[in-house]
């Protein structure tokens, strides 16, 4: 066994995985990664199951040091500068940290959460099938709380496998898609239109429980008290002050405010990665479209291994060049979508 020591880490960073299923009926929320696609990409790079436990790193910087042997890791998610012993590391690639080497990550340059997956996954005690930290319920392993400097993760010694990068599907852009309901009939047409046609910003006071949305006040037809009913990841509830809250992974399992709409599964991670203060909109889609997108999203995650490439050519990776700031603005003139660095085995 090797150890990965947390040399430094900011708030809102914790061990997360695919989440804790089956106990919402007892008030135990799902938790798990805010951006499941990025978690899956990082895990796929080091040969783990897509929803294995990894470190979810919040918007601030972090550093991890390998001890008692080499440790193979990968990063995906919100882009940030990264280096290992002074050599830049591109996003969406794996790297093996030699004993004593440190991986240093800067602040997120957009989005919020970056995932650090570790070959063989993080070891810990499963509760309802999950290591995910749910600080309020005192759950999570190896630490039932956000990570702190000095914490140690027991991990497998690096396999020595050659390093990989992953060509992720082109990110979806445009509005965050929602299905109206379950309580859209608690709002009149004018207020539903106000919700769908206004610019929204995520408040800085948001967290893993919920994203508070700043924009116009949404008014209820019959007041804001409904009888508590069940919530899902992406439920958008409207409390008495009219400022919607999108419920995220650490949400309460039930809530007593009308829910005007629900973010589609394929876009929950996109919402999670929307930076505080960035304007965005919602768009209502049909149930058929939402379910089609959910199936495509699940398929995209299953197909991630097909997108692995050798990392030998990583020096030509645009993001690596950009991160290292050696290519300057010249890189920006290249369309990332057509810049093919072929390294298929």
């Amino acid at each position, binding site marked *: 066994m090797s150890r990965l020591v947390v040399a430094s880490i900011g708030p809102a960073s914790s061990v997360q995985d695919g989440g804790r*299923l*089956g*106990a*919402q*009926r*007892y*008030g*135990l929320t799902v938790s798990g990664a805010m951006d499941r696609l990025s978690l899956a990409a990082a895990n796929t790079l080091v040969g783990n199951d897509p929803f294995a436990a990894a470190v979810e790193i919040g918007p601030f910087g972090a550093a991890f040091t390998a001890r008692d042997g080499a440790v193979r890791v990968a990063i995906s998610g919100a882009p940030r500068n990264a280096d290992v012993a002074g050599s830049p590391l591109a996003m969406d690639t794996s790297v093996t940290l030699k004993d004593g080497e440190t991986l240093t990550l800067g602040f997120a340059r957009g989005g919020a959460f970056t995932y650090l997956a570790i070959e063989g996954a993080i070891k810990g005690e499963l*509760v309802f099938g999950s290591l995910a930290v749910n600080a*309020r*319920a*005192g*759950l999570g392993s190896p630490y039932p709380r956000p990570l702190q400097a000095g914490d140690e993760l027991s991990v497998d010694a690096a396999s020595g496998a050659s390093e990989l990068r992953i060509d992720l599907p082109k990110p979806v852009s445009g509005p965050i898609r929602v*299905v*109206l*309901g*379950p*309580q859209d009939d608690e709002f009149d047409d004018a207020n539903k239109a106000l919700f769908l046609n206004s610019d929204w910003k995520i408040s800085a006071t948001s967290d893993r429980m919920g994203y508070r949305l700043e924009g116009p006040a949404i008014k209820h037809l019959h007041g804001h008290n*409904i*009888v*508590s*009913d*069940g*919530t*899902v990841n*992406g*439920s958008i509830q409207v409390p008495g002050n009219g400022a919607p809250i999108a419920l995220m992974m650490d949400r*309460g*399992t*039930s*809530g007593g405010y009308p*829910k005007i709409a*629900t*973010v*589609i*599964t394929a876009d929950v991670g996109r919402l999670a990665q929307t930076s505080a203060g960035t304007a965005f909109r919602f768009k209502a889609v049909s*149930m*058929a479209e*939402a*379910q089609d*997108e*959910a*199936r495509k999203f*699940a398929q995209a995650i299953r197909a991630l291994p097909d997108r692995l490439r050798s990392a030998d050519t990583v020096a030509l990776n645009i993001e690596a060049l950009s991160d290292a700031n050696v290519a300057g603005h010249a890189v920006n003139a290249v369309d990332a979508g057509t810049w093919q660095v072929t390294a298929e085995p």
Partner: protein
Amino acid sequence: MAATLPPPRLLPSGDSAVTVEFSRTIDDDANQRVLALDKALAASPIDGITETVPTYRSLLVHYDPGKIGFDALGEKILPIATRPLPPATKARRWRIPVAYGGEHGIDLKDVAKTLNTTPDDIVARHVGGDYKVAMIGFTPGWSYLSGLDKSLHMSRRQNPRLLTPAGTISIGGIQAGIQCLAAPSGWHLLGRTPVRTYQLHRNPTFLTEPGDRVTFFAIDHKTFDELDRAAEAGELVAEQVVA
């Protein structure tokens, strides 16, 4: 063959869950239908359903849209949800010890004052209730109880407290509650129980299930301390009444 019951509303909760709503208000008949549907789906699972979450007046059904679509699932749920209720089976009953008043129930005196009576009378009315676990939600093990004596119905506090102790026994609106973990609450705190409705590494992890019956009995604060230590060590300290 008995006539079928009126159909519930099927409300989309995104692309992977449906809220099966039997009523818009707190209503014991609706809650019985929620729990009956929950039981029926557990007994004969529909392929694609991943998890069900009973609440007062609706059942939230989580499902995998890769296995079943919204319309197909609705068609399978409706006939089950409109079946006449099966004859009531004997529910499990828990007797829950409560240390009322003092530091453990800081609102007891104020509740008595508001209702123009004595703290002892409030305790007697609370202990006299025959409750049912209508749902568990918000935080792990928080059991929402129906069956609160009508004379104890009162609106919630104007200013919710940001933190109330683990084990709090409280009332709010027409509901009573057993709270497990320390949490924010706008309810009136009558007492505390040493019983943990949720405790990791204990079998069972969760004490209460929706549909369970609950009664309370008063204990003094010294007994609370003794039972609290026993509960911390993993004992249930709630008495299960065998029907």
